[in-house]
């Protein structure tokens, strides 16, 4: 029984983390219209920042306080990364932006691998001390449950924040710039500012997801942040619908659950998951590019008219 519960808790925490990644990616790709292929770089930055701070300050701060501090630190580092990448790359056109952001994520990965072992663990990875609570065989359920609670709270807050942002005056400007940047600038809207804001916001949420991930796993390596994870995030966003936040939640659940279930599936199917996932994404993009929800939110299903 406990094994099943543990499995479910693991799954749901994964859904939570990928929901955070998906909504932030959706903000940048879907709402702001920027083709961004380096989101896993921000995720990695957040995770390693949190891991580093945990190691440096373990013992000098009470556990839970340190935990929260690392979440903030992960967000800040990732946000700085977003600023560093966003500002120069903003005037790049779609395809070029994609390759520039992909290059950035590669730089992050190479940096993590090549920095001296003592700093970030290199290719071998880096352990993350359990500071939230003591974790052992009998407390595993409690640990996962607590992490799930935190992840859920984080998701709710972030989704609320992004939703409010999109519907605010600044959000309208962002959408206008995304749809027609030239027209927007000719009508008095600064085209770069909303994009930078969206990019940095998206990066910091990815950093939050990274910090949560690092603490949950207890050990991180560069292999956790490979390009395949970026594909997973993209699949979630496309599946849920690029203009929909609730779509990200549903999409995250579907994708992560599928991935976990595939691990239990008969060999024949499970072995080929790395072919099946991209295939699924390709089919989706061809036959149902608007995903499940399109631009709608789950609340709209209960209303007749879709929000314009």
């Amino acid at each position, binding site marked *: 029984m406990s094994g099943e519960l543990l499995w479910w808790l693991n799954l749901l925490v994964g859904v939570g983390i990928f929901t955070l990644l998906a909504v932030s990616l959706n903000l940048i790709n879907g709402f702001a219209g920027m083709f961004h292929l380096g989101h896993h770089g921000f995720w990695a930055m957040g995770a390693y920042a949190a891991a580093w701070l945990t190691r440096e300050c373990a013992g000098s701060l009470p556990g839970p306080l340190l935990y929260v501090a690392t979440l903030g630190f992960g967000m800040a580092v990732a946000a700085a990364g977003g600023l560093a990448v966003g500002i120069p790359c903003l005037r790049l056109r779609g395809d070029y932006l994609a390759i520039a952001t992909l290059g950035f994520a590669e730089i992050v990965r190479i940096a993590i691998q090549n920095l001296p072992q003592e700093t970030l663990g290199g290719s071998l990875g880096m352990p993350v001390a359990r500071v939230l609570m003591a974790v052992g065989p009998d407390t595993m359920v409690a640990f996962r449950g607590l992490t799930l609670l935190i992840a859920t709270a984080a998701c709710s807050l972030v989704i609320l*924040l992004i939703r*409010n*942002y999109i519907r*605010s*005056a*600044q*959000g*309208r*400007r962002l*959408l*206008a710039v995304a*749809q*027609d940047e*030239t*027209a*927007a*600038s*000719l*009508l*008095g*809207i*600064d*085209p770069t500012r909303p994009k930078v*804001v969206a990019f940095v916001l998206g990066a910091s949420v990815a950093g939050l997801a990274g910090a949560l991930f690092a603490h949950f796993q207890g050990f991180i390596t560069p292999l956790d942040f490979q390009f395949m994870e970026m594909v997973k995030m993209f699949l979630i966003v496309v599946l849920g619908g690029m203009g929909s936040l609730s779509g990200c939640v549903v999409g995250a659940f579907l994708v992560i659950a599928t991935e976990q279930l595939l691990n239990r599936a008969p060999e024949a199917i499970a072995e080929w998951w790395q072919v099946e996932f991209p295939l699924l994404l390709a089919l989706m993009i061809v036959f149902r590019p608007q995903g499940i929800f399109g*631009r709608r939110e789950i609340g709209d299903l209960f209303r007749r008219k879709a929000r*314009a």
Partner: protein
Amino acid sequence: MSDPLFRTEGLTKRYGGLTAVSRVRLELREGELVGLIGPNGAGKTTCFNLITGADLPTEGCIRLRGADVTGTRPFHMARLGVARTFQNIRLWKEMSVLDNVRTVCVAGGRSGFWSGVLRLSSYRIAEQSIRERSEALLARMGLEGVAGERAADLPYGDQRKLEIARALALAPRILLLDEPAAGMNPAEKADLMHTVREIRREFALTILLIEHDMKFVMGICERIYVLDHGEEIAHGTPDEIRKDPKVIEAYLGGSAG
């Protein structure tokens, strides 16, 4: 004689070997309604692009109230009070009609990131005033009934009217209209002529418009510039232009006698 509100001198634009606009001199006085006409490819829209900062002039200068604003970036130019509509409609198609106008309105109060996200009262007050202004503009253009519709769903004529409403939201001093009557039937055009005169009066605008419909242009413009192959070939009142042999030749390719 006071300084004109707006002036270009020697405005020139070359693309590689092609000269799109050559030494064009335009002048707008406060409150005027001026037309810019010419055969296709004469360089009219290019002039608009140069004036609004979308393109950089190769030579020449642009003066707003005497100050040199050549090379100003588009969104600064807009903030200085120069608004425009577009020949190929460039509405934000996925957004609602109301939002198209609201987005351009600049809030008087605080519209920063956090005040928006947290819905602080300063934000909500600013939003309220923006909403009121936008709804008034829509009503002015007869679009209040479709405020919640997606901009892409509007009929063509209404889309053109929405473009004007959106430009007005900038509270500009100078309004550039690029073929506002294109695709409209005669009844709509007459309606538009009336509207243009009205908004000029109501919002204290100076208007420069590009149009192909001669009746429309002659009907409302006080002065007209005629371009052909990037050069100004005539300038004057509608009556003068009508009789100008160079204009007739440019349009008809031969003297009408």
